[in-house]
């Protein structure tokens, strides 16, 4: 075993040294403390005593070369077992690059982020909010959501945007400059829809508050959802249809493959990728459900960007979008869905991630729903809900059989399309899902 010998620090604030002359050659024996080399530094020229006894195995640096303090300069083969790494360096080693350090809490100003949940940050925010106790206590978090930042307020004022209408991807759900800029851009792209005034705001008449009642202030995300839902229902005349799908084959398929899939792909295999895949096929056959009402015309979108509704635990809903979903196979969809759902849950979505959707898939079945009437994700033309898979007695070939049944519903904008095409779409989706059998390929 060869022991490396490193360039020592021969003086305070010295950072490197030059091997002026080797005093030993490869193969020589050396005693402990015997001089190995003459070393030149900024401050001092000295002989380097050997930290160990042994035989010079290899000189790593040639004469005249300058190396950083702490760099290995030669190897000494010591007798018998290794007694441990060289410990005789009198000074601390110097890292060859700037040191990496821990983050001491005291030496920076309070960081803006609250979402990492530091006790200190919360305490700071609370301390700051201990004002004169009049009216509502405003914390940094509240102000951040209501008033965001100077540039955002300025853009909001310049473009007549209510900050509360914009969903925020910044710290704690804050509306960032990019968020509001995207919002403005989108609004400009869909002018007819966006001009509706925000229905949520301070009402002129409040409800009576009784003792024991609890006031829940709206977060910006809740406010945004409220506005969008009201807008959707107000603008689009909603109609609704439902079909039942026998997904026994799909259930069996998934049972058979899910473990192997999870292990192989590192991603859980849920029903959602299959549903989204079937929806995509349905949309390709019936593109009018992948469109937008544009006042006096309908715009059929070329891209198929599927929004997947994700229920966040705090009673908030967000719809990350899988762009060009038609380019993905089931595996790809599984991966992408997993990715966006995680991002959504970790509040890591960017404005790009939640915009540009052309159709939305809702999955209340995951929470046990068997029938639901979803609200269209305006300004899209339709939304599909996939319900829970329930084993039911059904009639097959005039006999009672137990099958896994899943309800599928579509809510659609009746200005854009009618029940006929809606049902044809639903049927296409149903047929696609029913086509899976236990031995099917997962594409």
């Amino acid at each position, binding site marked *: 075993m060869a022991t490396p010998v490193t360039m020592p*620090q021969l*003086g*305070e*604030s*010295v*950072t*490197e040294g030059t091997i002026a002359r080797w005093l030993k050659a490869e193969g020589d024996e050396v005693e402990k403390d015997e001089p190995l080399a003459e070393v030149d530094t*900024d*401050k001092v020229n000295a002989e380097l005593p050997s930290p160990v006894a042994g035989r010079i195995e290899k000189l790593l640096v040639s004469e005249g070369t300058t190396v950083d*303090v702490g760099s290995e300069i030669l190897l000494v083969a010591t007798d018998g077992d290794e007694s441990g790494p060289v410990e005789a360096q009198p*000074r*601390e*080693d*110097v890292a060859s*690059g*700037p*040191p*990496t*350090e*821990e*983050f*001491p809490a*005291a*030496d*920076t*100003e309070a*960081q*803006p*982020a609250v979402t990492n949940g530091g006790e200190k940050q919360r305490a700071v925010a609370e301390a700051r909010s201990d004002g004169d106790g009049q009216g509502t206590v405003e914390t940094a978090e509240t102000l951040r959501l209501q008033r965001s*930042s*100077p*540039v*955002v307020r*300025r853009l909001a004022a310049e473009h007549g945007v209510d900050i509360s209408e914009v969903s925020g991807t*910044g*710290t704690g759900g*804050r509306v*960032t*400059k990019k968020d509001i800029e995207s919002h403005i851009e989108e609004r400009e792209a869909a002018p007819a829809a966006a001009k509706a005034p925000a229905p949520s705001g301070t009402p002129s008449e409040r409800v009576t508050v009784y003792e024991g009642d609890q006031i829940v202030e709206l977060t910006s995300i809740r406010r945004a959802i409220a506005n969008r839902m009201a807008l959707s229902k107000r603008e689009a005349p909603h109609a609704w249809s439902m079909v039942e799908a026998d997904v026994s084959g799909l259930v069996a398929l998934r049972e058979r493959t899910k473990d192997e899939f999870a292990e192989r792909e590192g991603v859980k295999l849920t029903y959602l990728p299959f549903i989204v895949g079937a929806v995509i096929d349905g949309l390709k056959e019936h593109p009018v459900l992948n469109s937008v009402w544009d006042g006096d015309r309908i715009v059929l979108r070329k891209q198929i960007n599927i929004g997947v509704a994700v229920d966040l635990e705090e009673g908030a809903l967000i719809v990350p979008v899988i762009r060009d979903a038609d380019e993905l196979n089931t595996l790809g969809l599984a991966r992408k869905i997993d990715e966006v759902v995680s991002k959504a849950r970790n509040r890591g979505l960017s404005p790009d991630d939640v915009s540009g959707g052309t159709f939305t898939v809702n999955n209340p079945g995951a929470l046990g729903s068997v029938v639901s009437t979803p609200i269209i994700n305006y300004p899209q033309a339709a939304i599909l809900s996939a319900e829970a898979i329930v084993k039911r007695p059904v009639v097959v070939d005039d006999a009672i059989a137990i099958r896994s049944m899943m309800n599928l519903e579509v809510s659609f904008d009746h200005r854009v399309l009618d029940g006929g095409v809606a049902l044809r779409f639903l049927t296409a989706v149903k047929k696609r899902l029913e086509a899976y059998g236990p031995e099917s390929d997962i594409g």
Partner: protein
Amino acid sequence: MAEKNLLQAIHEGLAEEMRADERVMVMGEDVGRAGGVFRVTQGLQEEFGPARVLDTPLAESLIAGAAIGLSVNGMRPVAEIQFADFIPPAFDQIVNEAARFYYRSNGAWNVPITVRAPYGVVPGGALYHSQSVEAWFCNTPGLKVVAPTFPADAKALLKSAIRDPNPVLFLEHKRTYRLIKEEVPENGEHEVPLGKARIHREGTDLTVVSYGLMLYTTLQVAQKLSEEHGIEAEVVEPRTLYPLDKETILDSARKTGKFLVVSEANLTGSVSGEIAALVAREAFEWLDGPVMRLGAPDVPAAAFAKPMMDFFVPGREKIESAMLELARY
């Protein structure tokens, strides 16, 4: 052009100015025969003689004061204080005297001196060979304070400082003396005026202002954030700390809306506070995040033992974490 490190570039700047102007002289402890404890002035005494490259007694107030006296009687001294940590005895002469001569004499007497001093944390330096002292001087009207990081800039700024008719404090980060190397142009090809900042790296997501070793680290972190996260930081170096190039700093702040200063000086009362206040006021309407600073904790300087020393200086991880958080705010 040849590749030089900071130390060599400064040496070259001194030598060129001394050749061009016989009034220029160097004075300080160990600058002559020994060529300076960092070897910055090595060889100068051989070329210019012991009068123009003068080994002074160990007396910082004298060094600065005599430099003033020389400068009002026709010379252009470049005084060296061996370590910025030893500048306090010279403080009176620099701040009360050199900086005020011109104003108090109603323009009769100007003091064209340059005072050079190495500063900044270095392994083993501990309390008295590691300090950042710029905060003490950056509110002294009549004085200019310069702290270039890169060799070509340092050489050019040193020449500008020597030619400036006002007293200039020229701070050199000792850790970067040999660490940073680049092509350094010969005589006068690269000119840098005092009072002008430099944008090292353009970006749109946040602005980071830094100088010294911290600038070097920040640039590396900026590159990493670009590659790994697609975050583009704009990195600005003031180069002259006093008076600041407010325009460049503010333009950048307005462009990105997010602003961070990274320095290794004690945070409270630092130059970074001045820069932050400037931005908070003048770029307020463009801000999309709070104005942030990173600095050393408010303790009396870096310790000798490496673990404590490492704790003191804002390190790569801390800088990266601060930049990421701000970019995502």
